[in-house]
């Protein structure tokens, strides 16, 4: 379980996060939604240690990420898998080398063990055939899947996905969502997804948090979200013509 308490962050005096608290349960896909510039990505970066919050703490199964010794922090990091928005694959490495990279750097496994694990992860995301290709030779959707394979190769306890559907067609988006949900349930991972994709909200959002101008305005499950009375959330949800028509 991940628990965030009173997370606040300001850049050049501008408050981006205003004391956010939440709990994210194991084995669930937790979605953080909101419009552009509402602080979703900053919150994610605060949680994974790329941006240090001005106040508050982040607890990983009770271990305070920002107030623990370096060894504990390192071990928490090794329990994290992160899927970045653009995949963040290393351009100079093949798909297979990208997935093997965390194993090469952080483990003492034999080459055979690493190869077996990489093959399993690539098979899990359906990319066995692309193992020898370079990131520049594969599509956006495939890059995301390679990113997922790299994120799960170390058997993470926590999976963070920053806009996994951005730039993808609806069909590929659905496949990526399903893959993340399957992996979350299969390996009992605490998954946190940053998104503004309404399809993801309805399909895989087991626990949803809505951010607006750095504040948490709503939290709940996807079956309740359409019944919300929060005007900002209603405006966000039904900004799409199709959804508006469905609501009417």
């Amino acid at each position: 379980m991940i628990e965030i308490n009173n997370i606040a962050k300001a850049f050049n005096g501008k408050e981006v996060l205003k004391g956010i608290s939440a709990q994210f349960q194991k084995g669930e896909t937790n979605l953080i939604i909101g419009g552009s510039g509402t602080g979703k990505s900053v919150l994610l970066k605060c949680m994974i240690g790329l941006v240090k919050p001005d106040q508050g703490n982040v607890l990983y199964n009770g271990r305070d990420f920002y107030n623990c010794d370096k060894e504990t922090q390192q071990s928490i990091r090794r329990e994290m898998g992160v899927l970045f928005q653009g995949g963040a694959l290393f351009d100079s490495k093949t798909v297979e080398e990208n997935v093997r990279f965390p194993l090469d750097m952080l483990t003492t496994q034999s080459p055979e063990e690493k190869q077996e694990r990489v093959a399993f992860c690539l098979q899990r995301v359906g990319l066995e055939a692309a193992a020898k290709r370079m990131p520049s030779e594969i599509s956006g959707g495939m890059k995301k899947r390679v990113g997922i394979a790299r994120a799960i190769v170390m058997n993470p306890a926590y999976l963070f996905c920053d806009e996994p559907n951005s730039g993808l067609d609806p069909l590929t988006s659905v496949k990526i969502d399903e893959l993340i949900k399957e992996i979350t349930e299969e390996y009992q991972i605490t998954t946190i997804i940053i998104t503004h994709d309404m399809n993801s909200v309805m399909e895989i959002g087991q626990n949803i948090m809505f951010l607006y101008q750095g504040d948490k305005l709503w939290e709940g499950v996807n079956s309740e979200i359409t019944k919300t009375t929060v005007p900002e959330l209603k405006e966000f949800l039904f900004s799409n013509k199709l959804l508006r028509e469905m609501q009417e």
Partner: protein
Amino acid sequence: MSVIGKYFIFLGTLFGKGEKLSVYWQRLMEECVGIGVSSIFIVAIVSTFIGAVSCIQTAYNLVSPIIPISTVALIVRDMEILELAPTITCIVLAGKVGSNIASELGTMRITEQIDALEVMGINSSSYLVLPKVIAAMLTFPMLVIFSAFLGIMGGYLAGTLTGVITERDYLYGIRDSFVPYNIFFMCVKPFVFGFLIASISSFKGFFTSGGALEVGKASTQAVTNSCISILIADYLLAQLLL
């Protein structure tokens, strides 16, 4: 001043918690190829022509009956060893290697590849930058020795083929009044310049933020700052070591 302070803090992080030695060895070899071996062609072209032009122009200006013609070769040799090979070669390398390093790291930064390393708990500056700095410090002196040799050979070819100087005079000139210490001085310069080029360019690339435009700016700044630092260090080394 804050930029200089940030630069020194950045240098400190290179020697922070590192990864397995085998990882560094592999990275170092990759960088030696990328920085050193791939620069051989441009260094060879530039050095040969600079040596050739030095010989022709020195001979053109040295038209005194009391100065032996072998002095042309002596001047070419000392110019090459003391200044042209180490400084001009490193300025050329600042353009080629410096811009390459800054744009590579800048692109890695804006595409979140550096973030990905940091999230994994890897010391990204040490993993990415330290091998580049060491590779530059190792390969630049070799490239400069190669450059000096080709420069002197370029002078020889230009001088003898055009009839400006005879083969015998040239060979006599390059051995006349030779000071072995100058070779040591020639090797110290690229060692220092290699460090400056690789570290400054890495610094510029590593802290890039924004998009493609900023990567281009970082690359340009890396080259200009490297060139300025080379010229300052060149003067200081000359004052200190000669």
